[in-house]
């Protein structure tokens, strides 16, 4: 099968890959670009383990062709921490026992990352609804909700500091 060159920004860096038109973005991210943080859990867009941030939206990379990423801005879990510092969401998941086996975690974090930009001050019900495209078999979600609440508070605080500075 003939291959197509695709280029996009991954975690702020330009990347290129030679892909089949039918190749899924998750496979290219994991196998060609060696970003194995995003996972495959269902192949039907239900579990969200493959969630990445794609042009400012949460997207399930198991049901997107890699060629659709041409020119896109893609962020994966590997791009969350910056300058050796964990993102407040990562810190919150660790502080609140928001993960167990860790398989859903990268997708949860990436969804939380976008969700808190969509809704910086969510209620518990809004968090549950906003995260409902991501499944977790281990935690029962309670500590994930707590983690998102902590991250919302932390991000709000740093936002407040930035504004007052």
């Amino acid at each position, binding site marked *: 099968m003939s291959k197509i060159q695709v280029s996009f920004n991954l975690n702020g860096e330009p990347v290129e890959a030679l892909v089949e038109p039918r190749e899924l973005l998750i496979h290219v991210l994991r196998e060609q670009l060696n970003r194995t943080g995003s*996972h495959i859990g269902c192949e039907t867009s239900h579990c969200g383990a493959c969630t990445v941030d794609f042009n400012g939206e949460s997207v399930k990379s198991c049901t997107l062709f890699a060629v659709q990423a041409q020119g896109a801005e893609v962020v994966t879990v590997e791009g969350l921490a910056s300058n050796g510092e964990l993102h407040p969401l990562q810190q919150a998941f660790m502080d609140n026992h928001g993960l167990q086996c860790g398989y859903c975690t990268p997708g949860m974090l990436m969804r939380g990352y976008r969700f808190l930009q969509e809704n910086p001050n969510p209620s518990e019900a809004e968090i549950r609804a906003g995260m409902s495209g991501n499944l977790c078999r281990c935690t029962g979600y309670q500590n*994930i909700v707590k983690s998102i609440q902590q991250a919302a508070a932390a991000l709000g605080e740093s936002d407040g500091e930035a504004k007052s500075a």
Partner: protein
Amino acid sequence: MAATAEDIERKDKLEGIGCSRKRKEDPRFIQGQGTYIDDIKLPGMVYGALVRSPFAHARIKSINKEKAMELPGVLAVLTADDLKPLGLHWMPTLGGDVQAVLADEKVAFQLQEVAFVIATERYIAADGAELVEVEYEELPVIVDPHKSMDKDAPVIREDLVGKDEVGHGKRLHDNHIFTWEAGDEDSTDAVFDKADVVVRENILNPRVHPCPLETCGCVGSFDKVKGQLTVYMTSQAPHLVRTVLAMLSGIPESKIRVVTNDIGGGFGNKVPVYPGYVVAIVASIVLGRPVKWIESRIDNISTTGFARDYHGIGELAADKKGRIQALRFNVLADHGAFNSHVSASKWPAGLFSICTGSYDIPTAYVKVDAVYTNKAPGGVAYRCSLRVTEAIYLIERMIDVLAQKLDIDKAEIRRRNFVKADQFPYNTSLGWTLDSGDYETALDKVLKAVDYEGLRKEQAEKRARGELMGIGLSTFTEIVGAGPTKACDILGIGLFDSCDIRVNPTGSCIARMGTQTQGQGHQTTYAQIIATELGIPSEEVQIEEGDTDKAPYGAGTWGSRSTPVCGAAIAKAARKIRDKARKIAAHLLEVSEDDLEWDVDRFQVKGVPDQAKTMKEIAMAAYSDLPEGMEHGLEAVDYYDPPNFTFPFGAYVCVVDIDPATGETKIRRFYALDDCGTRINDMIIEGQVHGGLTEALAVAMGQLVGFDEGGNLQGNSLMDYFLPTAVETPHWETDYTVTPSPHHPLGAKGVAESPHVGGIPCFSNAVIDALSHLGVTHVDMPHTAHNIWKKLHELGVHE
């Protein structure tokens, strides 16, 4: 002597038992640096894809590989005929049966493994699998286990014709696997004949699937030059797998290494050895290259390790006051096409005889008949010990049925039947010795916390208004920690577990275990045990599991056995080290061993805290300054064979409101009190309880692996198979009491499975309680809105 502030500070610094230490696993997972099976990439690695049967029962007339082999990139297509010369077309199962690795002349369940295509790329392997042409001749299908033993039933396992036993006693029919009994049938019948009250109910534990978020997978890597086989795989029991592989392949066990790395959830699904693993390994041996096989979600739900499918008839005999005099449970167990039920050799129905639960029932008899059907093989323990959910579901449902019959409050009937705190150790009528418990205290605490009386009052008012509100109770006792080797083995290997600790000269240590974490946080909690036992800060304790070349042999992590069995091995190994440390300290301080006492992280001369040697100092001395005749080093290994199982228990209350028009259930409140004995890390225990309750919610309210009459699976992707999201999942309230296990070195009992085992009947009891005033005594799971709506319709609630 009261602990000084300095003592407390030293103790806190260790982060030992009882501390809610943050998890050491988390930094890699939150940064996308875990190593799960599909993350393994080896030089020269190729990919395998399985060709599966579209039919549930069919004869294979021919397999044509030609078109697949012509596809560029396809390296080989393996069928049963290719495996035959190696003797690998069948494999032994954990249930004492055999299972086809690749279908041998016929298929016996839908999506059974028929051929394996190996190609240079994942996509090409999948293309190749599409090109393999298989001609089938369809055969009549058995889906309903009640029809398996019909006179004219088609024979599912022709390979067993003429064999009157498949590992567990006499078979009564070609589709019969075994009959297993416990208790005294005659005396039970006699009690039933004379009883004031008898209740009887058909109760199903439907076929469900554990469905961990990561599917199963494997990379087989055979080094032809060294004759060494390395297998990376999703296994909850890597050491047992290594032994099975040695038995199967003839490769010396010393040349097989099984590595598990990180596992994306197991819940029992990753205990058995599946055909996919075996063909990937065989393909690697044949090709001399690493071969990767990763299961799809549909294949996972359809073919690997389902759970339950226990069709039970529960009966209780009681006096007029609701005191249970006898229990009789009969079960028809659907094991699918091969008996790959996970069980210890002597327990073909697992630990089902724990079904007397928390109650003092003087006489009991249980019988399980297992049969073949044209469905996927399995019978794994989905977040429970072997067949414990099935057992507890039956008793916790039946006691409600009895309460309803006698019009006794459902909390009160439990109280009347509890094994009392002063009766422990308590021998059950089915042969178990419950080591410890205090059921009444737990129930009282929960009833008070939820204002049970107030809830019942509210329910009465609501019923008067035609509203449906249910209050479910569950006061369960679990049996975990398999198990005493005199009673428990798999393939002849005792179910002990192990720990190997080595203390370094500078006082840190590395410890390795025979278990395998899948999210339970062993790296964190195991270190806490060592910190408390050895006075080494848990930050300086390195925990490793899941590499058979490094870790001592153990039976793995399932059946909540990590803390009850391996946790004990850790404590015992640490105590061996402490014994040696005491001798070294006595030598260094020039006193007798008897003059020393242990204090947090050091041995000190009794009453003279100034004269002490810390563990750090002792560690260095172990490599330099030893008493005469003592060996160097500071290490120990312990293989722990538990004297008994442990028996965690709990009291749960669930409150539901059901919409009479739609049948939708809203979980208003769920309060769970667990007693798992000594608590090592509250944060992790609570997380385990939240997760277990959510899996219980899934089973009770929505999960079902269902089939049509042709044996076609209806709903095998996450489009249909219910995994609760954060929206359906309620807020959990947790609580605890502490009744330490008297025989466990730490008093710990295990917790991860209790919320699943105790939670499922609690949900059912709540839903059925909401309908009980309408004369409903039981409805089977799952309690979907549609199923409840149908029931309400039947009852005429809408009119």
